[in-house]
């Protein structure tokens, strides 16, 4: 690629980022203020924002640092379960009604140690703290032993699978295969109150916007460049005096915390959390969203997550059996035409006309 094409494609990516961030902010305003939107649409917008945030979190670690996690559902679930516990405690405190989980778990009441989670700030700190701690321990052990690439991906996949099996057991104490549901109130307001769905969706969109801007600032700065350097040649970076363990651990923990925030926002909007979010399929799908949108550009993750899930939502209402085929087709199409994701559209030239990056016979060597 020539100098000029490179600068053009960078400018294009900058514009895409600004466009995506602006669209997210606009969506937040529309969801919050526009009265004509159906509750269903508001809810869909909120869910999409959560998925986009989840994809964004994976993009930090995969797109920038080049470390693929196939277990990000774990952190999403940590956020989801903690807010689930908070909502159940809150339901008991505000309505006095015993939730179903108490009955099917054979308890007399919710476990005592859940009590403090009735306070939202405590629940928030717990969700962020637990996801951070799990990520830190797991990341420290893995990165210290220089586990990376496909091995890391497989181990994270195993981790989320183990977590799923654990949470499916009733004895683990989190509702087993039924999970947690029957949330009644949030911040004292019944979930049926018209403003609640809007508030949740608008909050999700705003958090997504803030995360986009913050991650962007972080990634165009020194930290982001060092992450890219780690991805390109970690040995080289180490031999220039950088402790790459710290860099990788830092972005890994940040990514985990963002995923937990996504889970925290998601569960109140769908009204349920169960071990299915820990299934390897979800964790794999997050990577697919990033790959389809384009890795290492933040905006790509958002575009991928929103696009794939919007198609999924519209198809599952009409032709659910078609979904796997559509997803597979989309993956193949992107892999064939835009190996770096849909954001490559900016630098795309039809490959059957000329491939400037491939030497043709008779071309001078570069």
């Amino acid at each position: 690629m020539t100098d000029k094409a490179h600068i053009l494609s960078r400018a294009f990516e900058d514009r895409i980022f600004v466009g995506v961030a602006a669209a997210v902010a606009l969506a937040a305003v529309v969801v919050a203020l526009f009265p004509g939107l159906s509750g269903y649409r508001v809810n869909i917008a909120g869910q999409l924002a959560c998925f986009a945030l989840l994809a964004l979190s994976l993009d930090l670690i995969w797109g920038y640092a080049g470390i693929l996690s196939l277990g990000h559902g774990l952190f999403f679930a940590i956020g989801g379960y903690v807010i689930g516990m908070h909502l159940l405690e809150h339901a008991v405190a505000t309505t006095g009604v015993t939730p179903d989980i108490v009955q099917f778990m054979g308890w007399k009441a919710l476990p005592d140690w859940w009590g403090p989670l009735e306070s939202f700030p405590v629940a928030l700190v717990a969700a962020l703290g637990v996801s951070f701690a799990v990520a830190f321990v797991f990341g420290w052990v893995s990165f210290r032993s220089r586990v990376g690439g496909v091995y890391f991906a497989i181990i994270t996949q195993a981790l989320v699978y183990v977590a799923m099996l654990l949470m499916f057991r009733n004895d683990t104490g989190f509702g087993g295969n039924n999970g947690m549901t029957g949330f009644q109130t949030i911040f004292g307001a019944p979930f049926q109150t018209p403003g609640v769905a809007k508030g949740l969706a608008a909050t999700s969109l705003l958090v997504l916007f803030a995360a986009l801007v913050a991650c962007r600032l972080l990634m165009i700065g020194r930290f982001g460049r060092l992450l890219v350097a780690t991805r390109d040649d970690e040995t080289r970076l180490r031999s220039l005096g950088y402790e790459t363990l710290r860099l990788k651990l830092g972005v890994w923990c940040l990514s985990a915390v963002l995923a937990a925030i996504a889970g925290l926002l998601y569960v109140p909007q769908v009204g349920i959390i169960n071990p299915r979010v820990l299934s390897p399929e979800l964790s794999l799908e997050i990577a697919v969203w990033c790959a389809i949108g384009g890795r290492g550009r933040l905006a790509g993750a958002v575009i991928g997550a929103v696009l794939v899930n919007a198609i999924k939502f519209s198809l599952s209402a009409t032709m659910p059996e078609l979904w796997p085929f559509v997803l597979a087709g989309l993956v193949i199409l992107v892999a064939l035409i835009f190996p770096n994701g849909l954001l490559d559209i900016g630098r795309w030239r039809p490959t059957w006309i000329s491939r400037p990056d491939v030497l043709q016979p008779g071309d001078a060597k570069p």
Partner: protein
Amino acid sequence: MTVAILVEALTVEFGRFRAIDDLSLAIDYGEVRAVIGPNGAGKTTLLDVISGVSRAKTGRILFDEKLELTRASEAQIARSGVRRKFQKPSVFEALTVRDNVEIGLGGAIDAVARERVDKTLETVGLAAEAGRLAGELAHGQKQWLEIAMVVVSEPKVLMLDEPVAGLTDEETERTSALIRALKSPERAVIVVEHDMDFVETVADRVTVLHEGRTLFEGSMARARADARVVDVYLGR
């Protein structure tokens, strides 16, 4: 003159293969030392152990007569002032030329640092390419960029693994001028290279390795005349 790198009774093994066998050698400040020898002689392994990429089985390596390198991490070694250019040009392809050199310098990028980066880019002849992505550079330019990345921090020990591999004659000449310019009383330069004419132009002394041991140490002219060196490496 103090010793920059002192290697004592160093043995490195990969499984049952002994890459370096009870090797001892001293490299002084102010000199450019070439390490030559046939493939598998242990040249790159020696650089790997000095820079902390590979671990020694026994023996030790002292830097500046105090820091024991066989126990330090790669990052510690680099920060202490021992830097290395790899055999295959290793640059951060998705970052700009300037970013690459700034990362090599480390620390906060203030006006002083920026000036130093500019000067280094000037020295290696890449000032005009500062804004380009490193991945777009030609092979020779990548070699120079990598030299810039290690030189910008003004290392006390500079190791160059095959700096002219794959370069044209003209590029080789520029590289040898560059290396001569990098010579300083406060710095030791270690060059691993197969191009003997190049070695002759840059090196003060050569160490010929063979099967993990020192076969010869002295000037390149005497190495060319040494019967054992001619036998195992240079050929008749």
